[in-house]
């Protein structure tokens, strides 16, 4: 097992910042997982979801996938490699806006605990790595509600990259950041692109109050911690099944 870098140890997590949550205009809560590919975030959120489902909580799971409305455009843009850093970013923002306005916001107003596999921080890190201005990106996504808790899963670059490269026959063009012209070798391009993304993520830990999760910790141990942190930060009683 790889060693834990000191600055990402879980014990040193900053205390919860509830300023954003205090401003909320809805009864629901938003729980987000973020991190580069292969950091273990989806696995952990899946386990968290299982646990909440078994408990009968009022939850909804949403992921960073194309909404049906925008899907054909995204597919065309990627297949034909038409996307520039700007249009790549805008199209994903349109996609996210659709999910936000038609799914996430109504659910939050309806009092759901919303679990999101990737959120706006994915765009902040990935699109900034492509050369978009961070300031411009923040404005672009400013319609998105601020999460109640953002778990940031961090694994060393090699660990994460190996997990992805080992399990995938071929990396896709944009996924590997081939549009940046870093390297003609897809695996090499992917690695450098992920490293850039990782750096942008790391810069948001303080500014966006990420809860750092060490992606190299054993799965069940990390899940236990995640559940514990959730209970501390989010009042789960609000989402508990109603007694008759």
């Amino acid at each position, binding site marked *: 097992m790889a060693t834990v870098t000191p600055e990402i140890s879980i014990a040193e997590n900053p205390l919860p910042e509830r300023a954003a949550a205090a401003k909320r205009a809805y009864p629901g809560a938003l729980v987000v997982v973020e991190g580069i590919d292969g950091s273990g975030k989806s696995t952990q959120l899946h386990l968290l979801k299982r646990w909440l489902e078994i408990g009968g909580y009022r939850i909804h799971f949403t992921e960073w996938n194309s909404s049906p*409305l*925008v899907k*054909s*455009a995204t597919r*065309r*843009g990627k297949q034909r490699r*038409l*996307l*520039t*850093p*700007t*249009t790549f970013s*805008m*199209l994903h*923002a*349109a*996609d996210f*806006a*659709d999910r*936000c*306005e*038609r799914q996430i916001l109504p659910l939050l107003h309806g009092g759901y605990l919303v679990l999101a596999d990737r959120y706006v921080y994915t765009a902040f890190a990935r699109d900034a790595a*492509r*050369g*978009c*201005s961070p*300031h*411009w990106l923040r*404005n*672009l996504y*400013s*319609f998105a509600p601020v999460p109640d808790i953002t778990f940031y899963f961090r694994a060393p670059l090699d660990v994460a990259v190996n997990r992805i490269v080992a399990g995938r026959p071929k990396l896709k063009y944009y996924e590997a950041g081939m549009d940046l012209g870093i390297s003609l070798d897809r695996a090499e391009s992917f690695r450098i692109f992920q490293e850039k993304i990782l750096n942008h993520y790391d810069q948001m830990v303080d500014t966006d109050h990420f809860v750092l999760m060490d992606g190299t910790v054993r799965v069940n141990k990390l899940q236990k911690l995640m559940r514990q942190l959730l209970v501390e930060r989010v009042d789960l009683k609000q989402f508990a099944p109603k007694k008759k």
Partner: protein
Amino acid sequence: MTPPRSHSDAGAGSNGRPSKRSKAGKNGSANGSSRFYGMPLPGVRTEDLSGSLIVVEGTDGSGRSTQISLLTEWLEGEGFAVETMGLRRSFLVGEDIDALLAENAVTRTTLALMYSTDFFDQLERRILPALRSGLIVLADRYIFTLIARAAVRGIGRDYLHGIYDIALRPDLTFWLNVRPEVAFDREFNKSQTISYWESGRDMSLSNDLFQSFIRYQSMIKREFEYLSKRHGFIELDGEANVSKVNGVLRKRIASQLGIRSTTYKPSHALAHLWR
């Protein structure tokens, strides 16, 4: 956001009066970033944009498309190569927006962002290359219609200006201003009905189509009045004769491009537009 600057670095001052300075003077004074409102598009080199971007704005029924057709013919007759752009004309998402509009399921932010994707796809893959090749780009509407439409639907103006901060600043922006009542008459005569989106029916302004159209277009017009001040539009009376409006447009463009003579008679193919 950067504060609004004078409309063009080239021929016209912010007062909108033509200037004697020619195209050559413009290229001398334009530095890379001044061609953008704020920060330039990522990865785009701007130093060699030798063409000109000329925008014609105005609602449906303002005579905008008619004027674009006539100007294209005139400019080509003068020996200038012309490229055009407009809403929903991108290869990337143009047709997808048509589909979204037909469905009515789309929400305001999504639609606004699909339109901006459409805009930037045209700008980056068609318009910037054209300007680099020295073409004259005639834009049948630009970011201003997109900003106005989203703003009347409650999306923040600062948010919208933030998105279009990386857009290219036009050399000239004309606004064909018409009263909503006149736009209604013209649109109705053209298509015997009024479109869902042009009457702002998604905003639940009125169940009466005429009332809805007038109220919506009045809101758009107010946004344009604000944008006109902020971005230094050249406002023209869109209710005047086609030939008269065209004369004013040609005069301004001629002075911008250094064209001496502005006489023009449309070809047989376009003669029916000449009223």
